[in-house]
């Protein structure tokens, strides 16, 4: 059993900040996706897909917003 005092106490503001930055990356990625599509460079397109996939996994590791869990 893990003792409760050993579980890191992360302030909600920190998660909120990570969520904000993740959202920024998501918006930037959408720009990159549009641009790389117009460039027709498969390497850019496929690596953008990879980035999006990594970003999704990262989002899965963020706890839901407090207001989300209340809904």
């Amino acid at each position, binding site marked *: 059993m893990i003792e409760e005092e050993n579980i890191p106490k992360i302030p909600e503001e920190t998660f909120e900040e990570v969520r904000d930055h993740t959202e920024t990356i998501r918006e930037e990625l959408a720009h990159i996706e549009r641009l790389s599509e117009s*460039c*027709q*460079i*498969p*390497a*850019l397109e*496929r*690596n953008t*897909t*990879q980035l999006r996939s990594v970003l999704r996994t990262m989002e899965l590791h963020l706890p839901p917003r407090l207001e989300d869990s209340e809904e």
Partner: protein
Amino acid sequence: MGNSNTMWNPALETMSREYFREYQLNRLQAQIRHAKDNTAFYKEKLSDIQPDKITTMEMVTTIPTTTKSELREAQHMGDGLYGNLLADDTESIISYHQTSGTTGPPIRQSDSLRDWEWWTDCWATVLWAHGVRPDDRVFFPFSYGVFVAFWAAHSAAKRIGAQVIPGGGMSSVQRVEKIADLDPTVVAMTPTYAFRLAEVAEQEGIDLRGSEVAIIICAGEPGASVASTKAALEDLWGAEVYDHAGATEAGAWGFSCSSDDLGLHVNEARFLVEVLGPDDEPVSPGDVGRLVVTPLNRYAQPYVRFELNDRVRLSEKNGCDCGRAYRFVDGGVLGRRDEFKTVNGTLLSPRTVEDIVHGFDTVLNEFHVRIEDHPKKDLDTVSVDVEADQNHDYNNQRIRKQLRKELRRHTHLNFTVNVLQSGTLDRNTLKSNRFSDLRQRRAQYRQ
């Protein structure tokens, strides 16, 4: 001419020569700096080299080359698995591989996540050039062991978005059954194993020519750039056959394209490739030299001017029908430097024999060459064992005579030709060792 759909990265693959030179010099300087700053091996070896002063391609030859034997020694000095070769902390290493050890103890190869991204990208360049697309299904019939083999190709196929079928832990029979069952459109393997699987498929009554396989990607051996080998494989599989060259230390540096010319493009965005003569100076296009490769984006275990020992001939042609600006080596890898044998004063390359044997449809594709001392005279003898193809109306005496004549015409040597029953010679699942040099008396001529 090429367009964006035929290249993984058309912006890089069509870059002008001038831009390439500048790009490569900048990357080379950065790699030297990285290797010197982070590995005990290069800190000592390149102590006199100041990367900022390497400002022209001509100056590159002032940097000492790196040999396999130096790497073997350095990995056993210092701490840990990789000794003095490691440029990163061990926590950043995500994969272990090793060389096959055909010329000595294996070299251990560490790769970090960004190295693996580099491997993946280099192989994606290869696969895309060979026509692999997101709607393809790619089968990798290899052992998934410690040799790097097709590991990075597996990652690259996924990066492209293709569906990957891992073919490890299966017998050859199970693999051809998987091909019949799962309908892959692409299969990647060594040329030796492509012949072997075709043979097994025939024994099992599986029609590879009627399968969905449209692309065969060969690596590990130069066969797919040997005209007769490529033609024989295309006939057996009913598919386009492409060539790729790489090495554990150097990375995936070369790939064939859609042009009719046999050979390999050098991925110049990721590698500085030099072809040097015996005086260690670059040879002119059209001349054969040895390959020296610097991977330009390798971090955990970087290499500077690695002596690959392969012999290649840089093409004299300007540009390629496929549209790539990358330089081209005619006929791909012509052989390893230590594979060339001097027999009775004449240089013999395994590849020449391969080209001739694979051009004969009355014999199977396996063969074995033996070079021995003449029992009485101070001479060498050379013989080749081949297997008669029982599907043809053949006559051993005629095969022997015709093959001997062709071999003499191309090699200027008198071969003894032994025609054996099919299935007599050993079959390999990775690379073939088709040459045995058993000479004792004239050992000095072996290389």
